[in-house]
C-alpha cells in the first residue's frame, strides 16, 4: 500500500561510533516535487540520503521509500531510483557513450531500448559531440550532465542527488536546475542536498539540517514568512562603528555585513526593536538608516541553526 508520499521517515538516526551523524529525523516528502536538504558540511545531508537509498543502515528509526521499507527491501528499490553522488563516480577511463552503455546494461535495458535511450540522453544533455571522449577529459559541467544522463537512463521515479552542483559554474547550475524541473514535470520526485541558498530557494520544500538534527522544514516562502526574528537592515557610513554599537545588545541575535549595509536578526519577543536600535545608534552619534525588511532564506537558515556565527554557514547563492 503506497502512501501519497515518495519518502517517509520516522526517527531516522545514524551514529558512527560516538558521533551521531543523523539524529531522529522525521520526513514526509511528497511525490513529483523537488525537496531540498539545506545544511552546512557535516550536518548529516549525505548520511540521510545514503540511508534513504539503502547504502547505510539506520542505527534506529524507519523509512519507507516509494512504498518499500528500507533497508529491508532496498533491492526492490534499485530499479526505481537514480542516485548521483557528490563526487563524479562514473568511470573516468571510459568514454561518455561507454559509461552510458554500461549503466543501461546494468539497469537491464534491452538492446533496442538502450540504443534509443542513450541517443536521446546524449542529445538532451548536449553530450553528442563528446560521446567518444573519455570522461576524465570532460569539464565539471559536462561531467555533471553525464552523471544526470546516467542517473535518468532507466527513468527512475525518484532521483537522489547529493550536492550535485558543488563542482559546477553558475551558468551550468542554472541549466542543471532547468533539467530538474523538466524531470519533475514528468512526474519524477527529486531529493537534492545543497549548501547554496539560491538552489534551496528553487525547491518546493526544504529541510534545514544542523548537526544531524532537522531544525526547520517547509516551503522556502513559508519559512521566510514565519521566521522567528525581526530582520533589520542598517545603512551607515561607518558600518564598523554601527556594528560595534548594536552587536552587544541582548536582543540582537546576529549581525552580518552586506557591502555598506548591516543585516541584523533581532528577538521577535522584544517590542519596538526598530526604535530601540535607532535610539542606540543615535546615542552613540552614529548616523544610520534603519529599516525592517523581509527575511531571506539565509536569515531563516541563520535563525534555524542557532545564530552561531563562527561555524561554517552555507554560501550565499549570489556569491558563487
Amino acid at each position, binding site marked *: 500500500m503506497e502512501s501519497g508520499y515518495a519518502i517517509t521517515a520516522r526517527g531516522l538516526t545514524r551514529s558512527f561510533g560516538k558521533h551521531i551523524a543523523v539524529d531522529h529525523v522525521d520526513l514526509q516528502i511528497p511525490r513529483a516535487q523537488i525537496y531540498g536538504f539545506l545544511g552546512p558540511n557535516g550536518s548529516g545531508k549525505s548520511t540521510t540520503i545514503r540511508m534513504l537509498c539503502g*547504502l547505510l543502515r539506520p542505527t534506529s528509526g524507519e523509512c519507507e521509500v516509494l512504498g518499500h521499507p528500507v533497508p529491508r527491501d532496498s*533491492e526492490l528499490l534499485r530499479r526505481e531510483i537514480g542516485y548521483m553522488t557528490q563526487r563524479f563516480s562514473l568511470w573516468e577511463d571510459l568514454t561518455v557513450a561507454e559509461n552510458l552503455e554500461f549503466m543501461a546494461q546494468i539497469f537491464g535495458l534491452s538492446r533496442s531500448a538502450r540504443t534509443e535511450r542513450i541517443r536521446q540522453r546524449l542529445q538532451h544533455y548536449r553530450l553528442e559531440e563528446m560521446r567518444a571522449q573519455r570522461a576524465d577529459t570532460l569539464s565539471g559541467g559536462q561531467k555533471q550532465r553525464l552523471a544526470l544522463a546516467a542517473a535518468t537512463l532507466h527513468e527512475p521515479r525518484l532521483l537522489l542527488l547529493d550536492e550535485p552542483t558543488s563542482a559546477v559554474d553558475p551558468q551550468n547550475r542554472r541549466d542543471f536546475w532547468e533539467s530538474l524541473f523538466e524531470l519533475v514535470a514528468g512526474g519524477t520526485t527529486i531529493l537534492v542536498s545543497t549548501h547554496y541558498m539560491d538552489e534551496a530557494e528553487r525547491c518546493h520544500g526544504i529541510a534545514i539540517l544542523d548537526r544531524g538534527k532537522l531544525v526547520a522544514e517547509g516551503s522556502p516562502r513559508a519559512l521566510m514568512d514565519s521566521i522567528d526574528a525581526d530582520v533589520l537592515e542598517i545603512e551607515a557610513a561607518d558600518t564598523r562603528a554601527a556594528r560595534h554599537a548594536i552587536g552587544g545588545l541582548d536582543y540582537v541575535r546576529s549581525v552580518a555585513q552586506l557591502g555598506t549595509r548591516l543585516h541584523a536578526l533581532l528577538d521577535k519577543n522584544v517590542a519596538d526593536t526598530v526604535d530601540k536600535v535607532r535610539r542606540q545608534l543615535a546615542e552613540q552619534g552614529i548616523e544610520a538608516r534603519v529599516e525592517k525588511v523581509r527575511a531571506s532564506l539565509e536569515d531563516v537558515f541563520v535563525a534555524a541553526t542557532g545564530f552561531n556565527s563562527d561555524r561554517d554557514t552555507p554560501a550565499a547563492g549570489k556569491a558563487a
Partner: protein
Amino acid sequence: MLNRLFAVASKEIRQLRRDRLTFGMIVGIPLMQMLLFGYAINFDVRGIKATVFDEAQTSLSRALIADMQATGVVRVVSHSASSAEMNRRMNAGEVSIAVHIPRDFERRRLETDRPMAQILIDGSQPSLENLAQGLSGTPLPARPGIYRPAAHRFEIRTQYNPEKRTAVQIVPALIGVILSMTMMMFTAVAIVRERERGNLELLITTPVRSIELMIGKLLPYVFIGLIQTSLVLALGTVLFAVPVQGSLLALYVAALIFIAATLSLGLMISTIAQTQTQAFQMSLFLLLPSILLSGFVFPFDGMPVPARWIAQVLPLTHFVALIRGIVLRAAPLSDLQVPLYKLLGLTAVVLLIVMARFRKRLD
C-alpha cells in the same frame, strides 16, 4: 543475470586494455620472473672460490686438490701459507671455502679413525653446507699401488631430472608464484580502486547483484591467468628445455583451480583493504610466506612443523605439489587427490569468507 555479468566483465576488459601499465605487467611479470628465476637461481652450485693451505705438499695432496677443482664445484683462487692467512681470506670474503691439508696427511690417510684433511666453509652464506658435504666425499685420487678407490656404498639416480637442472624444478612451480603475484594483486587493487574512486557507491545503488559484480570482475582475470600459465610453460620449454611429461588437460585443470583460489584471496583482500596501497601491502604480506613455505624453494618436508601448518593454508603449497607431479612426473590427477582436494577446500573456505564480507552496503 548473464547480461549484467557480461556488462561488468566487458567493462573490466575495456579498462584493462586502456591501463597500459597493468596490461604490460600481465606479460612483463611472467617474463621477468622467468628470466630471473630461470637463469639466476641455481641450486646446482658451481665455481665457488676457494683457497688451499697445503702443508703436506706431496704429489697425492696436489692430486687431491686437482681432483676437487676438476669437479667444477670449487675454483682455487689462492694458496695460503698459514692457517691465519686462510682465515683472513675467508673473513675478507675473498673465498667461501678453504681446504686445509695437514702436514701428516700421508699418515692420516692410512688411519681410519682420523680425518685426512679439513674443509672450512663460510657459514654466513646459504647452501654452502650441502656443497661441503659433497666435497668431503671426493675420493682419493687413484694411483696404482698406492690406493684403490673404494666403491660408493650407494648409487644415486635423480629421477625425473637426471641432469639435476634447477630450471626443471623451478619453472613448473614458477607458474604458481607468478599467478599468486599477479592474480591476487590485480583483483584486490582493481576492486579497491573502484571503492576509492566512488564507483562502488554508485554501483551499489543499481540492481547489479554482488555475485554478478564479483564474477564479472574476476572473469577477465581467469583468462589472463590462463594466458600467463601458457606463457610460462612455453618459455620454460623453449628457453630451459623443461619437459611437460604429464597431460596438458590435467595441467590446465590444476591451473584453473589455483587461479580461482588466488582470485578469491584477492577478493578477500579487497573486502578488508580501504586503499590501493593497503591492498598492495596485504598481497605482499601473503606472497612472501607463499614463496618461502610452499616448497617452491625449500623442500617442504624439511621445514619445522609450525611452518608446515602455515604452508597448509597457503594455496601455493598444494599447487606446487600438483604442478610438479603433473609436469615432471606425469602423474595423473587421480594420483594427486590429496593436494587437489586441499586446494579445492581452501578455495571454498576463502570464497565463503568473501561471500560473508562482500555486501552491497557501505557500512
